[in-house]
């Protein structure tokens, strides 16, 4: 970098100009992004250091780390993390299995295929709160629910879902809702599989099961990974079935519900903000690991 010819300099100028142009074009979106995500987060951190209960306006002041200490000492956090992870993992695994099953069933030509596909997708399009209400009244209810009607018609005792099996209740509703999501991704994967490979396998004398195990499943692997990743991100925020059906009892108090309780029932802004910050940090750790996996999926492609 000792000498610069005029030509190079002018190219540099143009490039610099372009850089500023592109930067200024991106600026509104960037500003919007910062205002909408980063500033609220900073405010949350600030709130989390305050002693601020909405019902006690006279006692507002700095609490420093008192809220964080209470987050870790009240003993609500660990069970809540366990509940969140347990519910998310079970629902993801079940949705994946059912999603794969439905995807395979729908990946063939039959009459009414489009109708069947639409019907299978429907649960994913229903609002989570509405889905929970449907399950609560139409399915699980012990006096007017369908499940109760079936069990009593078979001479079996009725099942107290929310009271005795709260975890299963929440997981069933989530699985019902998220199976279509997994199915859609896996169906896309199945339909992108080349027919020739399958034909070749069958010419070579491989049965349906062996074809599935050695041809289809390896092909689906990256679709499975992506669906599990996206599904987990969505399911980590589970709130509606907990709020509507189990009220956080029996090991169903997820992080989202715990946060809601602290903020809107405890009306303790400081403590709720501290829970929020802790949740964000935990999510960041999980997301960093998960995103690494995602990049692997995109980059490594088929050569694994």
């Amino acid at each position, binding site marked *: 970098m000792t000498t610069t010819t005029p030509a190079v300099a002018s190219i540099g100028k143009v490039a610099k100009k372009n850089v500023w142009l592109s930067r200024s074009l991106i600026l509104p979106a960037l500003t919007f992004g910062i205002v909408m995500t980063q500033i609220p987060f900073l405010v949350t951190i600030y709130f989390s250091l305050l002693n*601020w209960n*909405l*019902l006690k306006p006279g006692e507002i002041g700095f609490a420093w780390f008192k809220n964080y200490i209470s987050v870790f000492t009240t003993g609500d956090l660990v069970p809540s993390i366990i509940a969140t992870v347990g519910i998310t993992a079970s629902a993801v695994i079940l949705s994946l299995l059912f999603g794969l099953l439905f995807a395979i069933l729908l990946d063939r030509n039959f009459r009414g295929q489009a109708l069947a596909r639409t019907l299978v997708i429907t649960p994913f399009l229903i609002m989570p709160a509405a889905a929970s209400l449907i399950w609560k009244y139409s399915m699980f209810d012990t*006096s007017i629910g369908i499940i109760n009607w079936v069990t009593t018609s078979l001479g079996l005792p009725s*099942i*107290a879902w929310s009271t005795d099996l709260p975890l299963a209740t929440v997981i069933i509703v989530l699985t019902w809702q998220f199976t279509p999501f997994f199915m859609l991704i896996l169906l896309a994967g199945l339909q992108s599989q080349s027919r020739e490979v399958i034909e070749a396998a069958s010419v070579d004398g491989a049965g349906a099961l062996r074809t599935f195990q050695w041809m289809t499943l390896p092909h689906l692997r990256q679709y499975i990974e992506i669906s599990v990743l996206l599904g987990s991100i969505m399911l980590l925020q589970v709130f509606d079935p907990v709020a509507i059906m189990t009220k956080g*009892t029996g090991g169903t108090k997820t992080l989202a519900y715990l946060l809601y309780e602290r903020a809107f029932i*405890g*009306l303790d802004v400081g403590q709720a903000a501290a829970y929020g910050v802790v949740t964000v940090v935990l999510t960041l750790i999980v997301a960093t690991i998960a995103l690494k996996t995602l990049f692997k999926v995109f980059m490594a492609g088929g050569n694994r």
Partner: protein
Amino acid sequence: MLLNKKLAAFGAMAVVSALALSGCAASTEDANAPVTLTLATVNNGQMKDMETLKGEFEKANPGITVNFQVMEEGDLRSAVTADVANAAGQYDIVTIGAYEVPQWGANGWLADLTPALTEDKAYDVEDILPPVRTALSVDGKQYAVPFYGESSILMYNKEILDKAGITVPNNPTWQQIADIAKKVNTADRSGICMRGKPGWGDLFAPLTTVVQTFGGTWYDMNWDAKVNSPEFTQAVTFYKNLLDTAGEKDPVSYSFNECLTALKNAKTAMWVDASVAASMLEADDSPVKGKMGYAHAPVVKTKESGWLWSWNLAIPANTQHKDAATKFIKWATSKEYHQLVGKTLGWTLVPPGARTSTYSIPEYKEAAAAFAPITLEVMSAVNPAQPGVNPQPWVGIQYVAIPEFQDVGNQVAQLVADALAGRKTIKEALDEGQKIAQVAGDAHKK
């Protein structure tokens, strides 16, 4: 202090920003200038009737317009709390429950209505049901007027009980009710339905009244928690046994609406809950209309065990339009308003449980014959100052009038739900609950 002010402004912005967008005119008061009042209320039927009829008030009081902001109960509670606690001045009139009135009044957040109400002879403040007035007053100052009120009563399906040859006494004991429930309990119909959904306003509304009639309480006079006392334990044990032997099968799913549906569909024989349910059971579309019987809430050691709740209109202390707001809340809780509702919307829709004179309106007596007399009887008999066997340091029946109670009640309700499901013993649940309650009690020790 500066920090407080900043926070107040910011908090109001953050929490009620959505509401702030709708805006409201806040100008200095001038007798002739047009005034717009902003009223925050809950989306119950009676409140919507008030919105329908507000035109009559505006006609009679030219220059005053009333804007209604109707919200879900939970949203209303957080929006109004944030606004009033921070003196943000968004609302001129707020709708709040009996639980909030004494606390907010004592905090100085609400305007004292005593002079405005007592001076106006036509308003007849003495006509308001005495227990309700007690629950809305602190040290003789009344901070809100009841829009409608309720107690809890026993409701039962007469057809089912007649078939079993059982008559329910007008003042039953819990033991009698438990025995009857067991007798009429069948595989597809429970003997009784009681709230089990965890929540301070769900499970613990009826359960607290049971605790009190068993001689228990949440706190003694020194604000020491009594959650694992023998009486409290006995009451919770009774409640669990009642549900186990004759109650609905999935209690955690059941609260007011679920029990109402069960009773309407003859899936349960009895129910102890809010008296306001009676008007729904006797509504024209109810399959059990005319087949119901009503009695006082069952007791053990006390004479009455009904609760007391009211939705009330109050004026935040810092409103700019106090006179106009007072005019409106007086109108909405007046005898004339009750006549207006009856004549224009129907007599069964008259707001119950607020005024004694409502129960002597001939048209109302006829339309609500099945449940009006018992509602008045119970509501006049309950004692919010001392509902249990022993004195308590707050006024209120099915709740403890301290800000922490929502949280304490919720957490203990979740523990009791674990006990109902058999995941914990009652002793374990209440020992844990005792610790939670004591922390809140300590904050109120003098």
